[in-house]
């Protein structure tokens, strides 16, 4: 089975801090994704990456950046955390086969105080 591991289940940080969320997948997937999930809004794509060192903006990239130095690892960075970034963050991965789903990690619930 595909395993997508997010480094923290819960995280509490302060306003203005630089925050790193880490995600690792073990299936050699080409594509990796970061979403944020808020009640009533579903999942919104922040960034995705289709190859090492490649990234594409999603629907809500403002205030975030990403890093993909190795194929299995995709990091989400909050450059200067703000309270409106308090949310659940979900990482996913997928292959380039058109008929394959995205596989998700368990999520990181991030609180910015």
């Amino acid at each position, binding site marked *: 089975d595909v395993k*997508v591991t997010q480094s923290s289940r819960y995280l509490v940080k302060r306003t203005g801090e630089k925050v790193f969320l880490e995600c690792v997948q073990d299936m050699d997937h080409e594509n990796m994704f970061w979403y944020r999930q808020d009640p009533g809004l579903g*999942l919104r794509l922040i960034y995705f990456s289709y190859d090492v060192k490649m990234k594409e903006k999603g629907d809500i990239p403002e205030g975030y950046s990403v890093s993909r130095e190795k194929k299995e690892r995709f990091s989400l960075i909050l450059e200067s955390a703000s309270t409106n970034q308090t949310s659940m963050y979900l990482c996913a991965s997928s292959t380039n086969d058109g008929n394959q789903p995205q596989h998700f990690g368990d999520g990181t619930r991030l609180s910015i105080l």
Partner: protein
Amino acid sequence: AQSVTQPDIHITVSEGASLELRCNYSYGATPYLFWYVQSPGQGLQLLLKYFSGDTLVQGIKGFEAEFKRSQSSFNLRKPSVHWSDAAEYFCAVAPFFNKFYFGSGTKLNVKP
């Protein structure tokens, strides 16, 4: 622009009753279609997927979904709901292999 609509935010059904969760999408061609389930505090787990062929697809946990091209719908069904099915359900469409659009979710409560 592509969009996915799940018109029901909350649904409550009695254990043993049947269930139908609605999903409509807006896209010119037939995209790839998925249903995911999310238990509290967890990530999303794939229930089933549709790419082509038979419009009725079977998934895990006794769920099925029917694709109706004329209605741009992909509704999820289960004949008899169990208390463990209480969760949030998300419909997703993928017009491209690496671009998924998710609905806002439907929370299912199951009454004993």
